[in-house]
C-alpha cells in the first residue's frame, strides 16, 4: 500500500483544501478523456485508481495527521443513506432542503458535486449545473449517471439547434447551392484545360 500523501503529491499535515485541490488536479491529469486510444491508457487508469484510493483514505479516515476533521454535521449511518435523502428531496422538488443538507456536510465526493449540479439545473442555473457535473465526471470518470447528466445538457443544445430547422431550412442544401457547386466545378475544370459544362 502506497503512502496516500505521496500519491497525491502533498506534504503530511496538508489541510483538507489542499488535499482536495491536489486530488482535482491529479484527476484532471489522468482523466481517461486525455488518454483515449492512447498507449498509456492502462497506466493512466491505474494511476487514477490509486489517486481515488488515496483521496478516500485521507478524507474518510482523517489521515495520519488528522488533516481532516471528520465532522459532517449529519448523523446518517452511511454516506449512501445521506445522499439518498438528498435525492428524495430533489425529486420532491424541495430544493432548499436538499441544498441545506449538502451545504452542511464536508464530504465533497463526486456524488456531492453531481447532486449539487442537479439542484442548480432544477433552479435554472445552468452555468453552475454544468461546472458541477463536470467536476463530478472528472472525479469519477466511469460513472454513467454523471456522464449522462453532462451529455444530456449538450444534447439539449443540439436538439434546439436542429429543431430550429423546422422554422426555416437555413442549413439545407437547395437549388442555389447546387448551381454554385456546378459552376465552381466547371471553372476548376476549365482552369485545368478540361470542361465540365460544355455550353459555358
Amino acid at each position: 500500500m502506497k503512502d496516500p500523501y505521496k500519491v497525491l503529491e502533498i506534504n503530511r499535515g496538508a489541510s483538507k483544501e489542499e488535499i482536495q485541490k491536489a486530488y482535482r488536479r491529479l484527476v484532471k491529469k489522468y482523466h481517461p478523456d486525455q488518454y483515449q486510444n492512447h498507449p498509456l491508457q492502462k497506466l493512466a487508469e491505474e494511476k487514477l485508481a490509486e489517486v481515488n484510493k488515496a483521496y478516500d483514505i485521507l478524507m474518510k479516515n482523517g489521515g495520519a495527521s488528522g488533516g481532516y476533521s471528520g465532522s459532517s454535521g449529519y448523523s446518517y449511518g452511511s454516506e449512501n443513506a445521506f445522499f439518498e435523502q438528498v435525492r428524495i428531496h430533489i425529486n420532491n422538488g424541495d430544493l432548499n432542503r436538499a441544498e441545506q443538507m449538502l451545504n452542511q456536510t464536508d464530504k465533497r465526493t463526486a456524488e456531492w458535486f453531481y447532486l449539487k449540479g442537479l439542484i442548480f439545473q432544477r433552479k435554472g442555473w445552468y452555468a453552475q449545473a454544468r461546472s458541477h457535473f463536470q467536476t463530478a465526471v472528472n472525479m469519477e470518470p466511469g460513472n454513467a449517471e454523471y456522464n449522462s447528466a453532462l451529455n444530456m445538457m449538450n444534447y439539449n443544445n443540439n436538439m434546439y439547434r436542429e429543431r430550429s430547422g423546422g422554422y426555416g431550412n437555413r442549413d439545407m442544401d437547395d437549388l442555389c447551392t447546387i448551381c454554385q457547386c456546378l459552376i465552381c466545378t466547371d471553372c476548376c475544370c476549365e482552369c485545368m484545360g478540361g470542361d465540365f459544362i460544355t455550353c459555358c
Partner: protein
Amino acid sequence: MFGYILPDKPELKIKEYELYRAYYCGVCRAIKRRHGNIPRLTLTYDITFLALFLSALVEKQPDYQDFRCILHPMKRRKMVSSSEILDYAADMNVLLSWLNLRDKWQDEKSKAARAGMFVLRRAYERVKAEYPEKSRMINEKLGELARLEKDKCASIDQAAEPFARLMEELICHPLVCTDKKIEALLRRTGYHVGKWLYTLDALDDLEEDIKNKSYNPFVYEYNYQGGDIKEFRSSLLDDAEFLLIHTLSELARCFELLEFKRHKNIAGNIIYLGMQKKTEAVLGRRNCIERPVQGIGN
C-alpha cells in the same frame, strides 16, 4: 428592456410579418391612448413579443383594424385593436421604461435619464396605482439585482436570477394563467426569457463595462485581472454560448408544451430563429447564420 427579442424576418411569411407589425402598432397605439404621445417612444420589441405571446394563448380572438401611422401617413396599415392584453403590455412598457431610467439616473447620474423620468412620471404613477402588486414585485426584483451588482456577484446564474424572476412576474397575466399547471409552465417560460435577456445583455456590454469599470457578472465569474479585453472576452465565449443556447433550449421546451390558440408559427420563429440569431450576433463569431435567405427555400 433591451430590444433583443425579434423575429427572424426573412423566414416569416409576409402575412406573418404583417401580423407581427400589427402587434407592434397595436401596443404603440395602446400607449398613446393610455399615456399620451411621448411615452410611445419607449416601446420595445421585447414588449411587442410579450403582447403577441400572451395574445396567442388567450381564448379571445383579437380584432384588427386599418389605420394610418403618423410616421408613414401615406400607407394604410393593419393593427391589433385594443384588448386587455395590449393595454397590459403598454402599461408594463411604461413601468419598465421608467424604472430603467431611474436606475440609470441612480447609477450614472445621467441627466437625460432624469429628464426622461420627469416626462414619464405621471404615466408611471398611473400604472403603479393600477397594478400595485405587480409593480411592487418588479421593484423588489430590481432592488435585488442592484444589491447583487453592488456586492459584485461572481456568478452569472445568480446575477441573472432577479431579472429572470421579473420576467416571470411580467408574463403571468391573469387571463392566461387559468390554472396552476399553465401558470407553472408560463412562469418557467418567463424565467428563461428573462435569464436569456440578462445574460445576453451582460455579454453584449462586456467590453464597454470593463472600459467604464462598471459591474459585469462575466468579469467576476471569469476573474478578469487586467490585460487584453478582447482576449478575455473570447476566452469565455464557449461557456457563454453554452449557457445562452441551453437557456433557449429550455425555453423552447416550454414553448412546445404550451397550448397556442394562434400565432404559433411567429412565436416559434422568434424563439427558435430570432433569439438564436441574436445570440450568434452578440457572440459575434459565426456569420454563416447571418447570410441572406437563399433563392428557393421553404
